């Protein structure tokens, strides 16, 4: 990767280390991780359970702090930000998609999608316009008044994808977005996520167990002993 790539990167990790104290022993999860993700790029993290995929996403998402190293994302040096500034970063710059959807149960589908547009202070008319357009794109325009717990898993995940994009963030983080869905549904959700992010030039960092992403991702990285290793194809 050249210096020019680095400057253009939306996510840039250098010498990132993270470990946990457990029973008096330090367990290193990430060790000296370097990574650059460019705008519009889809990077998949593939690795067995417990390898540290979620840990890495949480660090980039500003929900967790590293032991050492630097995280520059959407032009911000996350290590230097305080809690309030991190909250603002999460609100304005990042969209999240999780394995368990994490929709707000007391808000309708439309309200869930609109929520972040509201949080960043867009005018109400625009909130609704964007939310409805995204719902149409994920094929749920006729379900906007439904409660999340009335939707199927695949539908909930489509709502979550719409919600993650409504405020036009630079970064989308997806932690096993298909992990709770059957194979077929998972594949379609994956395609949808890929299509929407690419169309908007978002950089998408994705953690997954499943190898289906191989065909879609621009780059696939594995985590082995705390380090990122490129993977070309699953054996």
């Amino acid at each position: 990767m050249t210096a020019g790539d680095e400057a253009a990167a939306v996510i840039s990790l250098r010498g990132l280390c993270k470990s946990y104290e457990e029973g008096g022993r330090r367990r290193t999860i990430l060790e000296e991780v370097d990574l650059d993700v460019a705008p519009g790029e889809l990077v998949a993290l593939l690795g067995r359970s417990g390898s540290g995929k979620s840990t890495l996403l949480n660090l980039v998402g500003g929900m967790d702090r590293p032991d050492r190293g630097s995280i520059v994302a959407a032009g911000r040096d996350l290590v230097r930000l305080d809690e309030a500034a991190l909250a603002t970063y999460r609100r304005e710059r990042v969209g999240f998609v999780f394995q368990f959807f994490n929709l707000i149960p007391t808000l309708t589908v439309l309200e869930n999608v609109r929520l972040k547009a509201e949080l960043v202070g867009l005018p109400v008319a625009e909130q609704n316009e964007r939310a409805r357009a995204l719902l149409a794109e994920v094929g749920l325009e006729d379900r906007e008044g439904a409660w999340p717990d009335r939707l199927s898993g695949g539908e909930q995940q489509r709502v979550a994808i719409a919600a993650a994009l409504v405020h036009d963030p630079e970064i989308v983080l997806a932690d096993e977005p298909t992990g709770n869905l059957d194979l077929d549904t998972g594949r379609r959700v994956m395609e949808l996520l890929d299509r929407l992010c690419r169309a908007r030039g978002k950089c998408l960092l994705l953690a997954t167990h499943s190898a289906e992403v191989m065909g879609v991702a621009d780059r696939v990285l594995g985590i082995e002993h705390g380090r990122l290793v490129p993977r070309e194809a699953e054996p």
Partner: protein
Amino acid sequence: MRYGLLLRRNLFRRRLRSLLTLGGLACAVALFATVESLNDGLEKALGGDQARRTLVVYRKNRYCPQTSHLPEYYAREISRLDGVSSVLPVKLFLNNCRTSLDMITFQGTPVETMLKQRRIELVSGDLARFEREPDAALVGRGFAARRGITVGENFRFSNVNVKVVGIFRAAESTEEEIILTHLEYLQRAGPVNRLGTVTQFDVLVDDPDRAGAVATAIDELFADSEEPTDTRPKIAFLESATRDLREILRFGRIFGLSCALVALALMGGTVVMGVQERYREFGAFRTIGYKARHIAGLVLGEAFLLAVLGAATGLGLATLLVAFGGIAVGVEGVQVAFSLTPMLFGKGLAMALICAGLAAAVPAWRAARIDVVQALRTI
């Protein structure tokens, strides 16, 4: 950030639990307000300034107002004493002389003296008609309101059957609970004709500081007669009549405060449970950029909303009970009305809000401090 919506929706989502908590809180507030309103009523009853200038003369060793019979002519002799301003003979007729929630008190007096000595003022009706008609009666507005009595109707109890010709307001709250009739009417009304005897004399003294001396003079005057007297300042009489009530009320207030504790525990349970089951939801809120104080706000806001709703319901219940339950606590012919003041409404609301604040403070603090990563891990 649409707090109102989130709070309402969440209360509604757990409607059974919300309703149970709200109901418990409402009961606690209602009980608290009712006990306190009786206490306020009692303070009002004992706080009238007229009571300090008035002596009440009873038959010595009477068992109950009904058993006190004094010769009416005592009035003239008392009024000749030094320091006495005026004397009002009163014939009392009660439905019950022990403590009761449903007391009816008739007082028969010579009309002219009564109007001079008591500070009453008609709010409706016709005073001239009262003076004219021997079976006419004026009803205190507290009693009238509780019983729904209006001018023009007849009020009947036992052998007494009077025409209500006026409703009056009085300077003393206890006087608004009685029915005033002509003296002679009440003397004749009982099963035995009691013409010439009265139950008590209300003696107005010139100088409140000399009330004690006048009382002694009165009792000395009749010490050797057939019907000896027992004279006490009206305030002392009110105090002794309400002594048991005050004792019970002291206990009742402890009870009322225990209600606050129960409400606190109830709120605490609801809030803690709510926070526990919303752990992941709070994680999701934090992830999308809600700050710690927003989460605390959600928890506190919900508790305060419940408190306001519970207090409103409870105060509504108390109002219904006091205004339409038609009860007042009566002892020995003295009736103490429940007095629900705006101040008391404030106290009830404050009690609920304080409970909510205390119950939700720690859970809110803990919810605000959740570890986002950990919260997202929980399923």
